[in-house]
């Protein structure tokens, strides 16, 4: 696999109805590039959860919001970049919080951190953007 190969670059509206198409595109692209089923499903869920966080928390369900998705491949590692144009979020919010009691919320961030090798906000975000989240995972299988 060549260095920094572009897999997906796609702009879409931050709407829940768009997430299935994004999942399908990502799944098919990663399978085509030879990623394992486990690694592929892990990345698909993590990206879905990250998009959900943007829709819910960054844009607060304002469906005119824009998300830029970039997926790149380098040395058998997939790198996912998600850019939004909302107000900046506190990077601490991507750190999963310990939950002592059963709660319906807060699972998405935990999923992202468990499924990916790294989850980081780029600080400061690129000029003209709101937030840039970068997640990476190596294809082990």
């Amino acid at each position, binding site marked *: 696999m060549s260095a920094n190969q572009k897999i997906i670059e796609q702009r879409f509206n931050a709407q*829940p*109805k768009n*997430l299935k198409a994004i999942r399908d595109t990502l799944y098919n692209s990663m399978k085509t590039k030879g990623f394992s089923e486990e690694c592929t*499903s892990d990345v698909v869920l993590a990206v879905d*959860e990250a998009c959900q966080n943007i829709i819910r928390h960054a844009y607060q369900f304002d469906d005119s919001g824009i998300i830029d998705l970039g997926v790149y491949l380098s040395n058998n590692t997939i790198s996912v970049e998600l850019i939004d144009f909302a107000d900046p979020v506190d990077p601490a919010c991507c750190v999963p919080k310990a939950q002592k009691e*059963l709660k*319906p919320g807060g*699972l998405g961030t935990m*999923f992202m951190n*468990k499924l990916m090798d790294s989850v980081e906000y780029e600080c400061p975000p690129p000029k003209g953007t709101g937030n840039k989240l970068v997640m990476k995972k190596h294809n082990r299988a």
Partner: protein
Amino acid sequence: MNYSVTQNGDRTTVFLTGDVDLERSPEARKVLLDTVDQGQNLVVDMSEVNYIDSSGVASLVEALQASKKRNLNFSLTDVSEPALKVFKLARLEKVFDIR
């Protein structure tokens, strides 16, 4: 996601199919909580769930908690492999009554 509901006495089975995601989980949440509100013991058949995310899991947790508050039974049956993987990720596989 689609769903169907079958009632048998004081037990209602909700059969979920497809993707239980941010777009569809509000619908799942509503049918599950409505069933609990009606005082029904709830079985959720997950054999045909292809995909579930944190919003779908949250809907199930809410229904579980609502059932407990009303002393009703809540169980999941025939959980598909993708859904079970997500429950394990959330460490909920022993919280839910999975049959």
